[in-house]
């Protein structure tokens, strides 16, 4: 088995959060989620199907998102995902946690020798 395909430079566990955030803006199908993350991150994060599908499955299993089949813009049937209430609250909590952590990390990284 080839090594696990991870989004470039993506901190482990953050992919779920990014997916939730993307879906919080609007329901989306799998491919669209990948493209949207790539667009918003301005190409920094490139999400491959190899990690996207397991992540979607995991979120769906945990009841954070819900999948349904519907036609796309160009008249294909695709599986769309939307956020559940639980997913919404999870996203809110994780966003808060994330902000706290990044702020803390940033402070540490910017610390001068005087502060230490």
């Amino acid at each position, binding site marked *: *088995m*080839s090594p696990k*395909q991870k989004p470039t430079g993506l901190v482990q566990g953050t992919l779920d959060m990014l997916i939730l955030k993307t879906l919080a803006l609007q329901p989306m*199908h*799998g*491919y*669209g989620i990948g*493209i949207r993350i790539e667009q918003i991150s301005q190409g920094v994060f490139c999400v*491959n*199907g*190899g990690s996207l*599908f*397991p992540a979607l*499955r*995991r979120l769906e*299993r*945990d*009841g954070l998102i819900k999948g349904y089949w519907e036609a*796309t813009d*160009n008249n*294909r*049937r*695709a*599986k769309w995902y939307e956020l559940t209430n639980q997913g919404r609250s999870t996203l809110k909590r994780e966003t808060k946690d994330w902000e706290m952590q990044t702020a803390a990390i940033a402070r540490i990284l910017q610390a001068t020798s005087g502060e230490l």
Partner: protein
Amino acid sequence: MMSLVRRFVHGVSSLIRRNREEQELNDEVREYLEMAAERKMAAGSSPEEARRAARIELGSVAAIKDEVRNVGWESKLETLAQDVRFAVRTLWKFPGFTAVAVITLALGIGSTTAIFTVVNAVLWTPLAYPNAARLVRIVENVPAEESITGRAMRLPSMNPAEVTWWRQNARSLENIAVMMPDARTFMTRDGTVLLNGQRVSAALFPMRSVKPVLGRGLYSDEERPDAQVVVLGASTWQRYFESDPNVVNRTVVLDGQTYTIVGVMPPEFGEQAYWLPYVIEPPRTGAVQLVQVTCLLKQGISLASASAEVNALGRQLRGSIDAEPANPPRFEVTGEQDQMVAMVRPALRTLVVAVCVVLLIVCANIANLVLVRGAGRHREIGIRRALGASRGRVIRQLLTEGFVLSLAGGVLGTAMAYAGVSVLKAISVIDVPARYRNALGPLGTTILPRADEVAVDPHALAFAFGISVLTGVLFGVAPALRLSRADHRETIAGADLTTRTGPARGRNHVGQVLATAQIGLATTLLIASGLLLHSFLNLSTLFLGFDPNTQIFQLVNPREYSRSRKLEIAYSLSRQLKGLPGVESAGFINMPPLSPNGIRQNLYLPSEWESQRETLGDEYRASILSMSPGYLQATGVRLLEGRWLDERDTSGSARAMLVNRAWTERFSPQKSPIGTTVTFVTTGRIRRPLAWDVVGVVENVRARVDGGSQSGQTSTDLPLLVYTDLRQYLTVASGDRGIDGVGMELDMMMGEPGGLSFAIRARDPLTLSSLREVARQADAQIAIEGVTTMGEVFSGLIGRQRFYALVVGVFAAIAGFIASIGIYGVLAYAMTQRTSEFGIRLALGARPREVLGLVLGQGLVLVLCGILAGVAGAIALTRYLSTMLFGLTPLDPLTYAVVGVLFATVALAASYIPARRATKVDPAVALRSE
């Protein structure tokens, strides 16, 4: 919690909707690819290029789907099911390997489980009484110089007179209870039977705290001679009282006396037929009685402090014991269970060690076999890894295969253990009539104490399962690690590891050493079992002197009958037996063959030897036996010369005597002793110089079966015997006083306490009911006991030797079989590694026979090294067996030679299979595979 439930529900539902989910996933991935391709086309690629690029970007679809499937817990279950299915399919494809592996495993797991079951029940399970942990015994360690046998003894019994002393003084013990075997006649509708019960202290009932089926136990104020009360065992109650719920307060007649039934106890209390109160009586002169004592450790008192107190008290009691602290202490308190199993503990420990070694060998062997087969699987595994299976995944698959094997082995092994345990139980109790039990030594009829409690129970099943899993891990891990390491690029390219000679060849040193060690261990075990088997053969083909088909029984009289009445009954019974159709001869004797105890040995000398009596040693002593006319004929003892004793030889006529061959060889080797006058003397003084005329000489008969002696033909085994007519002897012995007077000697000549022993020779064996019928006609109150044949008795007496020969033999056979598999495994592995070498040899003109010799030679070296090591081990270890051997020494050359040659043949046959395969290598194929 919620999410756990949700996950569970999801898991179950996705297991059920597996197909639909699979379909959805397919659709989703396809759509994804389409969208990606469309986007690339929009960016200007051609449709083909776009699709291809999208695919490459996505990577292996199969791997993604696998990853998605792995998200839920249910996927693990599914993988397992898949692996198991795959493992079963793979194993099914190699039925030879699978059968050998499963059988080997079953033998290992089965024997381990069987021994665990026994050890668990005998040593580890507490006794089935609520106070089991506090149940103790007082034992006395008698030093060698005071012991009647000349060896140090550990006596778990005491003199009844001492019980009161312990009761009054021991503060760390309570409920001191006495138990004593007791047997009484009981009249049933089908005739009189002898019931085996116990006389016990009332304290036994609260001590064991077992709830009565009916009524109550005995009370302590009933420990007096006039309290005619009895507690029945449940089996007696069911059999003779049809489980009558109103049996309490009814009466029962035992030995002619009436007792009131006060209760019925279940089998958990004891297996005895009844319990009577034990009454401490003043000791009778000449009768040494020892009673079993069991008591309860007081709450909170340790075994050690109780022992200390008991030792101090015991010294006071004995008075004369020196003040020196003895080691071991003279008196000790020991756990009831310890006391019960102490004799077999070392034997069981040895078995545990042996069985663990067997199991380890099994694991090593299967590992080797798996490796042998794995050599051919490198390519398969390489391909699987190239297709994206992770190493962990491959290891899991290989381990699953191991578990499937070991569980199959476990199931078969448990069945074997079940069968083994029932065989073990069946042969672990010696079934001989009470009369012959004296010959059995300190353990009596028990080969394995608590054998009735041994059963394949949930513990044993759990153990078997656990041991199977453990075995699976033990033999599965090494091959799994080795195989999964295979570099798939190399394997697929064809540079198979196994075809590289040189370094690969030296690789299985461990396997070779292991195989040699196995053969060594198996050889040692096989020699031990060969010795035991040889010894058992010696025993079972012993010269007996009597016809094993002789039907025998004991005549038991109610205890209050007078001697003359007993005599009258015996003679009338004998007459009636002779009158039955088909009966050729019948009679009775006071001491039958094979019942050594109680035989009095004295000097019965030809009159002319009388002057030498002072100088004659024990080997000149003879035993006197008394019988009725017809007894010896019924037993099948041959008359060598002269005549039998018959109806002529009664109280009034001249004193006539038969002597046996041993007596004749001792006193009259040159000329016939017929007509010689024999005088009875004791060394020192002539007590009763009575002359007897020798009228006939009969063949020797075996008096005892003694597994301990190495010669097998000592004087006590084929003793000097003289036979007299019972009536004639009693007249002589009692003189004018009449035979109903006091006299231990007379009792002994009447066969008491066991009763007279009858023998019958008939065309067809008499049935028990016809015997009972005859007995009832002679006297309604007598009982017929121990109806069997002399052959059965003999077979029972050598039961202990049979047990050991069988158990050790089975283990040795298992070890031998497994070791043969081991040598096969090692050689077959070497074979697979050297396939191309053999191919080259054959291509260069080596003849098949030479290649065969090459492999066989390698096997021969292993086998010979192993057997030599095993023989050395046997020489070192089998001396511990010497006490169990009969008629041979632990270094019996014949046994060593036979075992060595037989096992070498088997082991070489095992190495022949891979050797033969080596000659079948097709050079073209072997070389092309390079």
